[in-house]
Every structure is written in C-alpha cells, then in structure tokens.
C-alpha cells in the first residue's frame, strides 16, 4: 500500500505584470474610472480644475497618498483589527496627507498656496478610503500598489482634461501659458471674451458630464438597465 504524499504543489510565482495585474491599472482608466463611473472624488474635480497646474499638483498628491497608503495598509492588513480598521486607515491617510502638504509647501510654495486647503482635504477624497477599504485590506502589497496607481491615474486624466478646457476657455491659457493671443481680447480692440462660466464650478460638472456621456456612448456596457 503505497502512500502518496500529497505535496502541495508550489504555485508558480505570478509574474509582476500578469494579465490580472495589468487590468488593475487599465480598468480604472476607463471602464471603472473612479470619477466618471464610480462617481467618487467629484468635489475636488470641481474645486481645483480652474488651472491645469493646480490639477496636476493635486493629481500627483493624490497619486502619492493612494499608492503609498495602499502599500502600507496592505502590508499591515493582517495586523489591523477589523473593528478599528477605518480609524487605522484614517491615521495612515492623515499622516501621508500631512507629509504631502509639507512637501508642497517646501518645494512648490506658489502652487501650494493656491491648492491650499484642498490638499488637506485629500483625506476626505472618497477614492482614498474606497481603495484602502475595498482593495488594500484584502490584497497583497504589489497588486495594491498597482491598484492605487491605476485609480489615481484614472482620477488624474479626468482632472487634467476638465482643467484643460476650463483653463483654455476661462483664462485663455494652458498650464499658465497664453494660448489665445492678447490682441484678440476686446479690451485690446479684439472681439474675444473669456468665458466666465468656465471659472465657476458648475461648468466643471458639465464637462465631467460630457466626458461621462462620451464614455457611455462608446462603451455601452456601462449603461445600466433601465
């Protein structure tokens, strides 16, 4: 009677960029975009998209906080008691946000003054807690990092597109560089006026709405059954 010892077959290590892992980055860019599909982080999309440079700084800050936070929480996921997990996540998020805030003030003071309070408010960005709670608490650090990266990139491109349109029509510039020539403006004898509506938050909502519209028209599986 031969006893077959069942040796647990060693699972081949998953390649770093397996199909599953790649999807973690690409999905949030389109099909599962945090802003246009999950409708999270709308407040900051309305608030800091008047200028592209602000939107860029905000995107990078969010990216740092989500990726690093995801890795930390994912590493600690077996240690954090589940009853106080939200508080633990908040402490980590708050720590990271404070770090980002201090860094911005140290290196890009002008921009830091403009994005001011909104950096502190990253902590209330729903994308953050969403990723920490829904992904990092249940996955290993590497996929968590990718997931954080994907989601914040998905967040970033929407922010930049909205800011692009708001800045070019609202201030006639892109990244602070003048695009619409000064001589076109009516104060200089031209015919052109900046669109004041673009400076106001409602227009950001309209632009996000148009992005959602285009996205759903191209990708019909996003449309809910009526």
């Amino acid at each position, binding site marked *: 009677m031969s006893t077959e010892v069942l040796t647990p077959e060693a699972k081949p290590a998953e390649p770093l960029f397996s199909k599953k892992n790649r999807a973690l980055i690409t999905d949030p860019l389109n099909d599962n975009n945090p802003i246009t599909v999950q409708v999270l982080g709308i407040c900051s999309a309305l608030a800091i998209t008047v200028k592209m440079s602000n939107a860029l700084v905000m995107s990078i800050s969010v990216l740092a906080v989500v990726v690093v936070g995801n890795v930390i929480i994912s590493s600690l996921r077996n240690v954090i008691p589940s009853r106080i997990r939200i508080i633990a996540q908040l402490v980590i998020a708050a720590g990271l946000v404070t770090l980002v805030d201090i860094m911005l003030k140290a290196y890009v003071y002008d921009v830091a003054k403009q994005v001011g309070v909104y950096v502190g408010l990253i902590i209330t960005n729903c994308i953050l807690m969403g990723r920490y709670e829904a992904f990092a608490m249940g996955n290993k650090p590497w996929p968590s990092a990718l997931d954080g990266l994907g989601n914040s990139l998905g967040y970033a491109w929407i922010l930049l597109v909205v800011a692009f349109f708001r800045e070019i029509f609202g201030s006639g510039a892109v990244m602070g560089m003048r695009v619409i020539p000064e001589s076109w403006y009516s104060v200089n004898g031209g015919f052109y006026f900046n669109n*004041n509506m673009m400076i106001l938050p409602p227009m950001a909502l309209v632009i996000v709405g148009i992005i959602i519209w285009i996205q759903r028209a191209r990708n019909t599986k996003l449309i809910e059954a009526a």
Partner: protein
Amino acid sequence: MKPAFSKGGKLEKLHWVFDGLETFLFTPGHATEKGAHIRDGIDLKRTMSIVITAMIPCLLFGMWNVGHQHFVALGEFIGHGEGFWDKFLFGAIKVLPIVVVSYGVGLGIEFLFCTIKGHPIQEGYLVSGMLIPLVMPVDTPLWMVGIGAAFAVVIGKEVFGGTGMNILNVALTARAFLFFAYPTMMSGDKVWVNTSVEPGQQVVDGFSGATSLGLAATGHADKVTSLLDSFWGFEAGSIGETSVVACLIGAAILIITGIGSWRIMLAVVLGGATMSGIFNLVGPGLGNAYMQIPVLHQLMLGSFFFGLVFMATDPVTASQTNTGKWIYGFLIGLLAILIRVVNPAYPEGMMLAILFMNVMAPLIDHYVVQANIKRRSKRMNLQTA
C-alpha cells in the same frame, strides 16, 4: 427626389433631414393605425408655427425699437412717429443676423443629432431659435449667440433626450449661460442700445444706456421709464421684450388657439402683483424707492410680460396639472419681483425665477397628484365603511 433618401437610397443617411424639410409645418403623413382614437389635428409642428406667429409682433416691434433707441441716443428722430423706416431698417439690419445665427447653429446641431441617432427631426427648436434673439441685448456679438444656442441645444436639450424631454427652458438656458459666461456683454448699461456712430454723428450729452431695471437696481428708481412708455415698450432692453403690448397680442393668440396656458399667465401676474404689493406696503418704512414703484408699473418694467407669455408657459418645462400650474406661475411672479428688487446683482429676476421654477415643476406636480390620490382613496373608504 424622395427615393434617394429612402432606405437603401444613395443619400440614406440624410433621410431624416429630408423628412423634416418635406413635412415642414405640415401634418406628417402617418395616421393612427390601430383601434379607435380621436386624434386632434394639431401636432408639434402646428403648435410651433402658432407660437412663432405669436412672437412676430414682439420681433417687429423689437426691430423698430432697436432703431428708435439708436437714433434717440444720437439725438435724431426723437419723436416716436418720426423716421419710421429708418428706424425699422436699422433695427432689422441689427436683429436679422442674430436670428439667422441662432437658427443656423441650433438647427444645424439638431439635424446632426437626428442623423446620428436616426430619429425624425423634431421642430422644438423653431420656437427656441426665435426666442433666443428676442432675449439678447442688441450688441451681443454673433459668435456669442452661436455659443449660447449650441450650449442650450446640446446641454439643455439633447442630453436629456431631445425635444419634449428637457428640464429647463431652452432659450433661457442659452441666456443664462451667456449671462454668467459673459456678464459684461449681457448686463450693465453699455449693451442695450446700439451707439455705433457714423462720421458726423455723436451720442447726445447725458445719454445713459441703462435699462429701467438697471437704473432702479443702482438706486435711481425715480428715473425709470414712465408707465405708458414701458407699456408700449419705448425703452432700452433686450431686443424683443420691451413692449408689453406686443406680448399681450402674443398672449391673445396663444390663449385663443389654446396653446399657451392662461392659468400660468394669470398666476404669474398675480404672483408678481402680490410681491410688489407687499413691497409697496413695507417700502415706505424702509425708505426704499425701488420698493415703492406702484404694482402696475413694476409689472410693466423689464421682461416680466415677455417671460410670462412665452417662457413660463412652455408646455414641456411647466407644471402639467391645473393646480400645479397655479402654484408654479404664482411662485414665478413672486420670485421674479423678489430677485429684481432685493438683489442688485440681478437687475431682472424673470430669467432666474422661471429657470428655478422649471426645476421645481415636477415636484409640484408630484405633490398635486399625490394629494389627489389621497383625497380619492379617503372618499372611497368613507363610502365602503
């Protein structure tokens, strides 16, 4: 020519554009197919053409008034009767391009959407396209009119599903967009009267291009145009809204043909009268001259009548129930006068009041219907008990 546009034909893609033009202002060829229906002979296209007819007095008077204001500012033809054709032609040259741009842009986008989505062209824009020029100041640059019309058709209407599905009045969406986007061209005292001068002409001393409401909002309530002038419409303002008489002619056409709701019109007047009545009572105590403008005069000023005849009655965005119409209209009148008098940032409250009540209209209808259901079920219980 028709076969080329039918299915399989060479110009198949343009079928609905052709269809829209072919049946322009006529009843479409289809008839009721199943069962016994009684069908009114009136449809969307006829409705629209009657509303446009009702707006013609406003348009014609607007053209004349644009010229009138222009020549008065230059100190020529000061009497109302003088230089009729000069004034009318001047106004027509200023106004017609705005009308053309409004229709061109709006219908162009509408045709585009119909072709992409493959549904028949709906003539909803015919009325909006005429209303947009009538609520613009005469000096609005044409590209702004185009942008406003495009925004209103795409964001105000097409995103909700096209004609009949919009929440907000399309023409007012265009105006509100331009008002917030280009405030210097849509308010203030520079835009209402065209003061372009030719060599040898100059603007008379002491000329102010401000509208009556603009004057009143900046603390000159004593300088508003007289009751009679604002009734006839001899005042500065947006192109088509100054004359109460022209609006009343339009109202008569709409009410006689049964297209505009007299309930809404009457309710708006009552609401406006109530609010200005209240202001009359408290005004002297507060020492506010604007509040003391008599009720009738207050209602004649600005675009109150234009808004209530052509915009508050928009059947798509107004309340549908009869009780709802009374509430809806009354609150429009109330809010319009309230915004106008109390908030100097918005000299005319009619636009914002109507847009706000457009948003509220479904809510009003909901509660009216619920109340009706409740009352009836109560009555039923009483009978069975």
